[in-house]
């Protein structure tokens, strides 16, 4: 299983195995990682699973879709590699990927 390194805002790192095919959001939720809220459970409506993909992996994760990009555009904490974690499906190529979480999801 690919290992994803989730890094909370305060620097706390969680290296966890996430099954291929599930989302980066669900991977964080299943591993009880603070800093992920996911109010809507992964429907791309609430913007509370915001994360920043380490630039080394943005090619693998691809870019945000229209609705996702629109939601991200509203966030004060948006960075160039911001994504909504519920819209990123984990693949084998993401093994070792670093994903940072923002200070707050609100």
């Amino acid at each position, binding site marked *: 299983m690919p290992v994803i390194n989730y890094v909370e805002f305060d620097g706390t790192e969680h290296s966890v195995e996430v099954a291929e095919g*599930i989302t980066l959001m*669900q991977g964080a*939720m*299943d*591993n*009880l990682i*603070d800093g992920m809220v996911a*109010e*809507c*459970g*992964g*429907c*791309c*409506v*609430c*913007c509370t699973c915001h994360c920043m993909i380490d630039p080394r992996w943005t090619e693998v994760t691809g870019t945000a879709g229209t*609705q996702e990009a*629109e*939601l991200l*555009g*509203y966030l004060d904490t948006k960075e160039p590699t911001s994504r909504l974690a519920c819209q990123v499906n984990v693949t084998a190529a993401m093994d070792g990927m670093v994903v940072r979480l923002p200070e707050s999801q609100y």
Partner: protein
Amino acid sequence: MNPSNHCIVIGASHAAVQLIISLRQNGWEGNITVISDEDHPPYQRPPLSKAYLANTIADEQLALRAPAAYQKLNVTFKLSTRVTSIDTQNKQVHLDSGEILGFDKLALCTGARARPLPIPGADLNAVHYLRTMDDVKGIQASATTAKTAVIIGGGYIGLETAASLNKLGVKVTLLETESRLLKRVASPQVSAFYLRLHTEEGIDIRLDTQAAKLLGDQALTQVICADGTAIDADMAIIGIGVIANTELASDAGLTVDNGILVNEFAQTSHEDIVAAGDCTNHPNPILNRNLRLESVPNATEQAKAAAASLCGIEKAYAELPWFWSDQFDVKLQITGMNQGYTEVVVRGDINNGRSFSVFYIANNKILAADCINRPKDFMLAKKLILQGTDCDAASLADESTDLKSLLI
């Protein structure tokens, strides 16, 4: 905290799962037992009428958390088990298995159940309700052979189910007793939009129409309306609302009034018992009134307050309600509660296409917004409502004004 303390949680859905996670986060060291009368580990309900019914997501994707998460939380699950009564004096719950469990703290996350339709034939084969994963499995089984379906009820669940069955190739007729869809929750303008949307997609919507009886030998064949009209149907789904599961609480002597009555800390009238989710009637400090809501954000956010209370921490539940619905290619996001609005402002074209927002206003303040395929409007509307500044209706309606510029 005494590690031998035992917390029992009744129900294993959105509220319960957040509650057990928050319990551990708040330092609860004692045992936790979660009791559910369903036989599946916790799963998400919103996709049931949407992607799950339409076969676009699998069972595993419906799970609220992976099994390993519950192991990490060190929680004992008792599935397919019903709590039949609560003995508040001896602090025990009685189970349908005959077992009696003692608790130090108790959390009621009993949710709601589908409201039954008291008409003849509602117990025929291929007549379904839609609240649980098992309900959906039944609907899917019927849909594999059904060519026609009648949906009774034009609320969110009925409309989402209509869209999903349509996707599966079933011809759908939807009956609504009121003169418009979504009457309980939406404005006439938004109701009219949903009528147009469903009609454009080929759903036969019949307003002012009441189902009087369901006919069939064993399986359903026809739905007979109050005006005598007969509609051929191979299956039917009843979606006429829910009833909060409050009987356990009222039988135990807790205060119940349109939901289990709790304060902003999710505490019931018993000091060791909290409640969260669809089953509660709770105060909303932002809106200054009591609400009984049926939404996931309500269940999870209130559960955080409930868990804190059980750990002796005061964390008030004070969130602006929000909700969403997916039908066809339309995503609706609602923020705030529109009750009491005196003015409606539409941003975008409500009569053509599928992208606009509707703002509800009273006393010059925005109360709520319905955003149709407009996620950005939704996020900004939420901020504008919370900010509570006087709104400028002309700018709201004017698409050339960036909503961001209205924020202070």
